[in-house]
């Protein structure tokens, strides 16, 4: 191995220059010619590739006036690789729908090249623009330079996180509300929560224009906001006829009719008939016959709550909080702001540290949560009513106040011998 090492500093990483898919290694090696830190970054990664050990230690670093947004990394190999001893990431709020002008992108490039390592990640898992590779000093310079140009810093820690949304009305015909605008409005309205951790734990919004959920909101955000409609699916008879003629009746039955989850769409005399009262707005028929079928005109959103990844209770999906509301006018926006405010207040007061809103709902119960935030129970919030009889009626006991005990989970009794460290 050490023989080989003399030829190239990074023989293992070099293997990733091969193959047809664009190689980040090749790209970064070129960048390393003018940015020594990038060369040392690759050296550190090479060592990880050899040992399968990671060499980053994480902490926080805050820009003046902000309580998050910088992911600080210190290299355990800092003595050997001083250029990456401090190698931080700045999260920057992306434009709605990740839309850019080249002028805006070039601005980011110039700032990154001047104050940071010249590595951008487009984009982070939450949605932010990630600017990698500034140190304790240049992080502040980069942050100032970004903000001078009107960019703002993204969220981290127990705060509102940077929002993300699908392309929506910018070019998608399925979109049932203005994902780009609502994303910007929510960001701007709650910007202080994004910059100053005040919530029990992180809170993510993701917005998708229709139930296809291209923003993966239902599983990746605490508050998925998903476009939908409440009137009838629009049918263009001529286009239906064309589709049936082109594909044949059997294809339509096999791929559209029989795939409907509620069996509410039919092919009768080569025409599409939909029992809209039974349609759950799943999008399948519209996706397949997208010239012939389209979402209705009475549009709005379904709002869910509680989606998140594995930690700690296992994955959870968002569940319905607001089955339907329009989201078009200023009053609609105010209603949304107000709802978010009530949720944060109740969760903020009663949630435990590190408890996502979905975990909180699970702990206190959905019914209690609805009361706490002032929402009326609706059958569309559940798959079905309860199957057990253990109802905690409140008539004779007084209401159970949700989440009142702010206690940590019980620590075990010492039932086992204390072990030596392993």
């Amino acid at each position, binding site marked *: 191995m050490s023989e080989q090492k003399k030829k190239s500093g990074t023989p*293992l990483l070099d293997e990733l220059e091969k*193959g*047809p*898919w664009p190689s*980040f290694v090749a*790209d*970064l090696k070129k*960048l390393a010619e003018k940015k020594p830190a990038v060369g040392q970054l690759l050296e550190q990664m090479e060592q990880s590739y050899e040992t399968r050990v*990671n060499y*980053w230690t*994480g902490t926080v670093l805050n820009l003046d006036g902000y309580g998050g947004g910088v*992911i600080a990394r210190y290299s355990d190999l800092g003595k050997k690789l001083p250029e990456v001893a401090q190698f931080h990431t700045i999260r920057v709020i992306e*434009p709605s729908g*990740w839309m850019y*002008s080249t002028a*805006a*992108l070039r601005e980011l490039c*110039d700032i990154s090249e001047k104050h940071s390592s*010249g*590595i*951008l990640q487009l984009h982070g*898992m939450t*949605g932010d623009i990630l600017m*990698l590779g500034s140190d304790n000093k240049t992080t502040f310079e980069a*942050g*100032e330079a*970004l*903000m001078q140009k*009107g*960019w*703002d810093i993204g969220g981290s820690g127990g705060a509102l996180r940077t929002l993300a949304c699908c392309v929506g*009305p910018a*070019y*998608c015909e399925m*979109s049932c509300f203005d994902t780009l605008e609502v994303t910007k409005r929510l960001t*701007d309205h709650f910007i*202080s929560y994004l910059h100053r951790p005040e919530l029990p734990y992180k809170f993510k919004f993701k917005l998708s224009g229709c*139930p296809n*959920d291209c*923003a*993966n*909101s*239902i*599983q*990746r955000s605490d508050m998925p906001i998903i476009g939908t409609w409440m009137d009838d699916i629009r049918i263009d008879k001529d286009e239906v006829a064309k589709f049936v003629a082109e594909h044949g009746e059997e294809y339509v039955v096999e*791929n559209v009719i029989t795939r409907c989850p509620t069996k509410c769409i039919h092919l009768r005399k080569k025409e599409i008939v939909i029992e809209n009262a039974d349609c*759950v707005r*799943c*999008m*399948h028929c519209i996706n*397949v016959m997208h010239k012939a079928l389209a979402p209705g005109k009475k549009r709005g959103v379904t709002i869910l709550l509680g989606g998140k*990844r594995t930690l700690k209770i296992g994955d959870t999906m968002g569940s319905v909080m607001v089955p339907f509301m329009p989201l078009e006018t200023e009053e609609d926006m105010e209603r949304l702001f107000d709802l978010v405010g009530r949720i944060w207040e109740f969760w903020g007061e009663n949630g435990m*540290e*590190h408890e996502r809103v979905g975990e909180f709902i699970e702990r206190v119960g959905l019914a209690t949560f609805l009361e706490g935030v002032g929402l009326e129970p609706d059958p569309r919030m559940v798959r079905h009513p309860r199957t057990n009889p253990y109802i905690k009626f409140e008539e004779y006991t007084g209401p159970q106040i949700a989440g009142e005990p702010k206690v940590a989970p*019980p*620590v*075990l009794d010492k039932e086992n011998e204390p*072990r030596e*460290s*392993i």
Partner: protein
Amino acid sequence: MAAIEQKKMAPRDQGAPNYKEYLHPLMVKNYGKWKYHEKVKPGVIKRVAEGGDVLWVVRAGSPRTLSVDKVRGICQIADKFCKGFLRFTSRANVEFFVDRLEDVEPLVREVRDKLGFPIGGTGNGVTNIVHTQGWMHCNLPGTDALGAVKALMDELYDEFTNERLPARVKISLSCCSINCGGQADIAVNLQHHHPPKINHNNMQICELPKVVAICPVAAIRPATVGSKNSLEVVEEKCMYCGACHGQCPSMEIRDPDTDTLSLWVGGKSANTRGGPSFMKLALWGLPNNPPRWPEVGAAVKTLLRAYKDSAKEYERMGEWIDRIGWKRFFDLTGFPFTKYHIDTYRFARTTFNTSTQVKP
């Protein structure tokens, strides 16, 4: 002006950038008034507005981690063909907007030749892999998401540039059990095989109660080791989730000798048909084998082959398995079904078959 201004801090709390300045003129004109779309070929979609305007959207795969010069290269192409407007997708693809059909092919060529990016990632194929920071920038990873994704996309290149699978296949890759990569039709995730090893010398005393509190199964308790306050883990309770490691670096959950990768299948976000679903364990114990993780590539290809041969059109990975059943899934893929596939966590019983509905 510059001299005085320089000392002043830039304005705070400015909020999100104004996306309206970044919309292609045809998007501004037809905002919310799009009528339908048509596939031209893999990676190229024609978007038609109610008024008849047409916008071609050309999608290219990027490695997500980009040098500024690569980004400038992208900009150059967008300036030349797209009036200076473009976007990125949630899966790190770049989308170029073209308003003249005759510009599509020259743009495709430049994207391929100058950037080295493949055109594709649309429709019923494998799109770009959502992935995490790995050894490049996270403090927790047991593997390198960037390299593993590059190697896997090399293997799946032809599925990115074609649309020849039953339905779209979304893949994610995560470098620890926190699984930042998220739900997907196929997920490759790092798997730990034993409880954390505690570095008692480096315990950050002030954080101990927080570390105790973060364990989902209450497996951590205070202990005195030597004369120091430290923690211990009740091994019978621990399920190797690594939550404590995120809270405290001294709870070392990673192990370069024993960590492996597993394959999860059937996650879906879209509300189409049966609605969203979580992915399930398909295969565990793949070696964490940099720099090219060949065993992962081989397993994913085996899985895709079985899916391609047996799924119906519009059937996502999870829906296909729902139809054929897990027995046949394991038969078709040749993956072994083991006792570790049976859930032992909180809602295990809801995953048992409580009927006589069994297939031969």
